């Protein structure tokens, strides 16, 4: 795909529409229906729209993959100009409803686990913004920094002090990247896995079985977070199996290449799936990008589940 035009479209979307891909407020907040989360508050769960956006990113990537090596790829350059006026990414990224439901369930599970651990938290609903992680990774710093300030203001406006994140990329943005660009940044940021661990959440049953752990690069090497996920799985009675290249030296799922080079992303995922299969057939992930990218290369004989799915079975009645 033409690199500049693709980054341009994503960056323009963030600048004009506050998200790299279009997602309605209803679509972004549907996961919270029926959970009775108060609006705002000193402590909030912050999804950063990452789980909600994954189905759209996957749909976009599928569309890109179809045109990646054809003459149609050249039209992306024109697309950037059209996209400034008409949101063309809305036509390219239409995910199946079942996929959206899968990711919404993961988010609801996370909120239920936090409640079970005794965490009193609110949610910003329609005011919640995407963290800008993809644009940061792609190096569009001016657009990212402007957006990061908007995100921070949305927290300050709602008098938020503590932010509970749900995925590694958003955790890294809010905890390690934002403080470097926003003067006076004072949010206390923790991943829900860290919060559950700190609160010493107790299981109601042992689910047993084995799970091969696929560490997220960002949790492992950016945030130094390796213990909490293992302790929570062990508490659930799950025997954690370590694949080749695990922990601090975990092998990337290839997901970060997806927006520009979908084929390279799948090639990398295939390598990692091979390693995971050597260790077992049930794999636990803790990042929605890993989950979807590894799943694409999975084939038969291996199943992936987000860690939240394991934890609800053990820690919720």
């Amino acid at each position, binding site marked *: 795909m033409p*690199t500049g035009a693709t980054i341009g479209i994503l*960056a323009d979307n963030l600048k004009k529409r506050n998200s790299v891909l279009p997602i309605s407020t209803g679509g972004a907040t549907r996961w919270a229906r029926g959970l009775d989360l108060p609006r705002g508050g000193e402590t909030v769960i912050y999804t950063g729209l990452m789980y909600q956006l994954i189905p759209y990113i996957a749909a976009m990537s599928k569309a890109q993959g179809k045109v990646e090596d054809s003459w149609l790829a050249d039209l992306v350059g024109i697309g950037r100009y059209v996209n400034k006026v008409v949101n063309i990414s809305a036509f390219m990224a239409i995910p199946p409803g079942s996929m959206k439901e899968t990711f919404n369930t993961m988010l609801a599970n996370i909120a239920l686990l936090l409640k079970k651990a005794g965490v009193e938290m609110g949610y910003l609903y329609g005011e919640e913004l995407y963290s800008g992680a993809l644009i940061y990774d*792609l*190096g*569009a710093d001016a657009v990212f920094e402007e957006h990061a300030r908007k995100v921070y203001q949305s927290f300050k406006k709602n008098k938020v002090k503590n932010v509970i994140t749900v995925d590694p990329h958003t955790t890294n943005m809010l905890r390690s990247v934002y403080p470097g660009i926003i003067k006076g940044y004072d949010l206390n940021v923790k991943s829900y896995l860290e919060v559950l661990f700190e609160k010493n959440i107790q299981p109601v049953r042992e689910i047993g079985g084995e799970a091969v752990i696929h560490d997220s*690069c960002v949790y492992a*090497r*950016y945030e130094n977070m390796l213990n909490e996920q293992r302790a929570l799985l062990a508490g659930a009675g799950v025997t954690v199996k370590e694949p080749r290249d695990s922990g601090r030296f975990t092998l*990337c799922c290839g997901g970060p290449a997806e927006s520009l080079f979908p084929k390279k992303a799948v090639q990398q995922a295939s390598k990692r799936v091979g390693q995971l299969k050597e260790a077992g057939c049930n794999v636990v992930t803790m990042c929605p990008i890993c989950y979807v990218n590894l799943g694409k290369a999975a084939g038969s004989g291996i199943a992936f589940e987000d860690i939240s799915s394991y934890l609800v079975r053990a820690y919720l009645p």
Partner: protein
Amino acid sequence: MGLVNPDFTDRVNRPEGFNAAACMNCGVCSAVCPMGIDLLPRKLFRYVLLGFEDKVLANSETIYSCLLCRMCEANCPAEVNIAENVRTLRNYINKNVFNI
């Protein structure tokens, strides 16, 4: 041969950005790169330090293919901030080539 642009290194450099002076060219980063990118980062960073803008720009695909997974950093004996250097180069290309 490459064309040296004397301003290039200064333009890439930002206070918190590009820093590869500690790189001892040992090649561990290339050996452990999951994408098998043999150019990154040792040659690429050397191009920047020497001012070879044209050679850096000719390797744009390589720069954007990096996963920023930090496997190289976890193994780098000189503790070079490789991923941030790559991001810095992306930022340079975005601004100066793609007008983003």
